[in-house]
């Protein structure tokens, strides 16, 4: 598993572990929250059937909301949607995920642009803690279905972020360009190779557009995807979606390292928001080498892999073997070469048998930047459980998400190594879903997501 659910381990300590500063959204009182979700009503003005018809035609969504957008509530549950880069990448990882990949069902370029504009408006509203549409969940005409599904009405913004990316199939299908995007597919947006042991299910793989919704409240994340899907009906259809709980990595030094379903700390060595120079080097995409791919400058590439863990078998494995496979202690998360969680692993230290304390086939060694040409990635995975498999085993594991500058250098070689050599991957993991998406830079006020692509 690429980049591994379990971090390599060379994070400088800094103030790494100040638990106290883990961001937790303040709870405001119910009235305020409700008002914020409904705050558009007065501003939208027109109201009534006209507005509903406008939205339905996809004309009003963006402009009306952009015009109406109140400054985000002074509330630390809100993460601003607009910016140079999309939120949800270096944003301190929220607790919950709902990710959905969509197939675009129209072949009309204008309709696609319209969809992206409508999504932009809705995304801005929902991340600010407001309802979608001009009349929201309860303030529209009595005889029309509400514009917002309403299940987030009494909740605050929940630090919702919506991060949108484009799959290769948006650019071309059957070798034919779509939506007039010939020449716009970035070279880095490759077709991932088959990795040994892959058991990818088509219904969990690919997609034209991906939306990553992260929030501290699962209902907020689900609400967001549900409403985007609804807005997309007729133009886009959900291809697959995935719920995640329990972030399995930290993207900020203010966060404690979480644990994956194997019970090990995950993401110790992850890139953090504070590592700005490293982010430039490993996460943020450049302008590429052709004019057609310049729209990606400041964006990133999102790798998603659904990694089923054979947790029942793992649970029957001795602690010695578990720690040996990972290369870290289970309790503290220290590398087996010694020290504490954030001590750099020493791959050279040997035991009295002449073998390195951190095994040659251990996950930490194979995933470590030192063993991968110095390459690093920003991981943002989540644990998942999708019920059971009918054989009494949890269908559970890691929904691996990583953001990288270029998957050709920053994902494929490492995943190939892992798939071939990592005993953990060979015996305890199975990749069942996969996706690679080009995540454009952020949206400025008045713009829309992916605007540069259509310029």
């Amino acid at each position, binding site marked *: 598993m690429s980049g591994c659910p379990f971090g390599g381990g060379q994070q400088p300590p800094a103030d790494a572990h100040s638990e106290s500063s883990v961001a937790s959204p303040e709870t405001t009182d119910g009235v305020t929250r409700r008002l914020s979700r409904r705050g558009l009503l007065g501003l939208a003005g027109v109201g009534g059937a006209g507005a509903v018809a406008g939205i339905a035609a996809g004309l009003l969504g963006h402009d009306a909301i952009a015009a109406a957008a109140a400054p985000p509530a002074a509330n630390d549950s809100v993460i601003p949607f607009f910016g140079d880069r999309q939120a949800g990448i270096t944003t301190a990882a929220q607790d919950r995920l709902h990710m959905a990949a969509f197939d675009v069902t129209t072949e009309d370029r204008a309709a696609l642009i319209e969809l992206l504009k409508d999504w932009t408006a809705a995304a801005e509203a929902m991340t600010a803690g407001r309802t979608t549409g001009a009349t929201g969940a309860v303030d529209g005409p009595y005889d029309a279905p509400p514009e917002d599904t309403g299940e987030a009405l009494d909740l605050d913004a929940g630090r919702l972020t919506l991060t949108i990316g484009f799959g290769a199939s948006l650019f071309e299908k059957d070798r034919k360009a779509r939506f007039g995007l010939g020449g716009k597919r970035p070279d880095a947006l490759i077709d991932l190779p088959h990795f040994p*042991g892959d*058991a990818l299910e088509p219904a969990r793989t690919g997609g034209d557009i991906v939306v990553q919704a992260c929030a501290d409240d699962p209902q907020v994340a689900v609400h967001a995807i549900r409403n985007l899907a609804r807005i997309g009906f007729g133009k886009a259809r959900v291809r697959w979606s995935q719920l995640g709980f329990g972030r399995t990595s930290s993207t900020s030094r203010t966060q404690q390292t979480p644990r994956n379903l194997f019970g090990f700390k995950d993401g110790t060595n992850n890139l953090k928001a504070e590592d700005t120079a490293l982010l430039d080097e490993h996460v943020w995409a450049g302008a590429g080498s052709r004019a057609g791919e310049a729209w990606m400058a400041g964006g990133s590439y999102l790798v998603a892999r659904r990694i089923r863990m054979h947790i029942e078998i793992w649970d029957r494995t001795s602690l010695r073997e578990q720690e040996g496979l990972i290369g870290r202690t289970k309790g503290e998360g220290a590398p087996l070469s*010694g020290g504490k969680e954030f001590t750099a692993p020493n791959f050279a230290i040997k*035991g009295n*048998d002449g073998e390195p304390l951190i095994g040659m*086939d251990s996950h930490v060694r194979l995933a470590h930047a030192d063993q991968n040409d110095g390459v690093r990635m920003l991981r943002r995975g989540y644990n998942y459980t999708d019920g059971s498999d009918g054989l009494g085993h949890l269908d559970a594991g890691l929904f691996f998400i990583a953001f990288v500058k270029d998957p050709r250098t920053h994902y494929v070689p490492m995943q190939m190594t892992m798939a071939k050599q990592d005993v953990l991957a060979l015996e305890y993991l199975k990749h069942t879903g996969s996706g690679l998406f080009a995540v454009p830079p952020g949206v400025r006020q008045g713009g829309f997501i992916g605007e540069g692509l259509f310029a």
Partner: protein
Amino acid sequence: MPGLTSPKTRRTAGARLAVVAATAVLPLALASCTDNANANATGATDGPIQVTSTDTECKVSAAVAPSGNLTFAVKNDGAEVTEFYVLAEDGLRIVAEVENIGPGITRNLVLTAPAGKYTTACKPGMQGDGIRADFTVKDSGKQATADADHQKLVDTGVTQYTAYVKDQTEQLVAGTREFAAAYAAGDAAKAKSLYAATRMHWERIEPVAESFGDLDPKLDAREADLEPGQKWTGWHRAEKDLFPPAGYKALTAAERSAISKQLVADTGELSTRTRTVELSADKLGNGAKELLDEVARGKVTGEEEIWSHTDLWDFQANVDGARIAFENLKPALEQKDAALAKDLDAKFSALQAELKTHAKGDGFAYYNELSKDEVQQLSALVDALGEPLSKLTAAVVL
């Protein structure tokens, strides 16, 4: 098998086992050990005896403990890799040890100690005599069983299993020759009839065979396990050709001949290497567990024999291999944990009985003939057995 495609990987894993085997004791903190958590409840301290190893000192929080299971929590506060030993009174015989503790790391050493005088030692840098101190175990009424006899039973079990591996390997070599000849000659009917039965000899000894990391992928790789550019040889290559999916393009006679030759050669190499393989009790115990894991992961799900659907043959063979290992260790296990031995007996029988209901002629029903309920039932019995089986190694070796 899952995707064991890396020579380096398996060899290292094998080496790790060998190291464990070299010490008489498996220094693990295992919940399955009876009462180790409170080993010291009646002693000078509560909970584990704390040992702090620095570059110059070896601090042991208690010098006296009651007999029974003892836990030493050994913390390395020094700058070098350290080890901790419990030695017999003569200071020579090693009763238990924990090795390779990196700086800053704590490892538990669990042992069963009869009353008597002992010596403890930390060995920072893993060299020299170490920093020693006297240690006394007082009779608590819980006497640990003596072990010369136990070791003999273990040794006998290992010897028997070694002979079993040799026998299965020889049958595998003979069967493979026959299969390969039929397959190369284009006698598909005969090759198909030999396919599953011959593979059983392989599946019975799979953990041993897999310890040769370079041979395993050559002989047993599934198509999904291949890496780009890797040449596909072995049983499953022939399987796909003999049980072709729709739209499959058959191999040429020359290609079939090459696959056959390679299969025979690789199996011969396996046999040669198996002759010098050294087994040990923990390899038997862990091997038995791994075989059940294989069943749970690949056979009960029908992923192993994706074209021939002969998964139940492999299933039976994996269970055979696990059961033989267990039975060879059973006399030793009965001394240490009779209840576990009984439990395993019962669960092997239950699984075997269920498997038998799917027997057809000399073989079994095809996997795709099983109903969902039947697969669930098999899976439940595999899990029921797998859980106690994972305790076998520690119970016998500790």
